[in-house]
């Protein structure tokens, strides 16, 4: 997971996380898998705020 940033550019990862946003808007399912936590943090926070 932590090597994702080496393989993909920020834009590539953003496109993949866009898909995650569509299928799992609340980032409920395995939020710590696939994407480095630092990279997904903003989206997870936004999802948490939306839920509150």
């Amino acid at each position: 997971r932590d090597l994702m940033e080496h393989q993909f550019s920020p834009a590539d990862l953003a496109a993949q996380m866009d898909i995650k946003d569509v299928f799992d808007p609340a980032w409920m399912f395995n939020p710590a898998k696939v994407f480095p936590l630092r990279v997904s943090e903003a989206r997870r926070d936004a999802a948490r705020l939306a839920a509150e």
Partner: protein
Amino acid sequence: MTILTPTTEADLSEAVAAAAADKAPLEIAGGGTRMALGRPVQAERTLSTAGLSGITLYEPGALTLVAQAGTPMSEIDAALAAENQMLPFEPMDHRSLLGTGGEPTIGGVVATGTSGPRRLQRGACRDAMIGVRLVDGEGTAVSNGGRVMKNVTGYDLVKLMAGSWGTLGVLSEISFKLLPAPAAEVTLVIEGLDAASGVEALSEVLATPQEVTAAAHADPGVLGDASQTLVRIEGLEGSVAYRSKQIIAGGDWSVREAQASRDVWRQIRDVTPFGGQPGDVWRVSLKPTDGPILVGELREQGIAATALYDWAGGLVWLLVPDDNAAIANAVRESTKRLGGHATLIRAPASVRAAISVFEPENPVIERLSQGLRAKFDPHGILNPGRMRA
């Protein structure tokens, strides 16, 4: 009408970003041979990938090809033929069916998710794709997958792009895995079967271990006066001879050798018999045994439908009288009941604008598609209206 023809991915990004800033819709084009598919797009600017042309990388030893989206299929076919290799999925050329000119491009094949008769055994367009580069609706260049088969991290955007109809991004480069071209081929034919018995005969052959690479049935008048039920066998010469002998032993098959075999599958692949004939053309995908049932139901309602069944019956090309909403409804209803998908492939633009060209999506799938579209093309500038009103 402005036509934009970027020649590098950076130019492409810029063109899309500029359109996004102006909120100006873009119709995405390649060689322009498939523009009459889907719903008509209302756009002032056309974005052509024709300037993004050329094979980036071809490694015959690794069975890998990387090509820019605007590369003509003829160029790819010629390069692969020189090494006795091929794209596994035998993509259809829409020109004769749609009556269009121009040069089909690899980007058009991928954007429409086009596969041909060999899909039955070797998989669809998306299955052969191992990497894509694209520019999304904000002008951001995105890369996914790669040039090797083992590339398994992250989410798979590659397959998402197959059949995305230019609505999620503009393709700039695509990587494929390839197959060696077969050394020999032969086609076995039975004439005069009705569709249900034809599909049954195809199923029987497919259940044998003879590795059929295509199986089709054509109604009377499509490939000849009588109906034809056909299977194709490919491989090394000795193996083709042995396997066809095994199949002939099980039924009343006659043989068509090399060139005749290639010709007939080219006709089936491109649905040329329906080209130039008046009428609308539907492409229906369902369970193989349901193909003849669908056509039967339409005929019971008095609809003069002619059918060409590919993929052992699972893909039905329907030629029906044109410009009649009742027929469209009948096709949709029967398809839905049988659990299939129907796409209106050829009809006047006014008809394609008025009725749903693609199989209507259930609400859950529709929400996901709309969500993806909102993420990849937030301004709705990429081929707006192509897939839905």
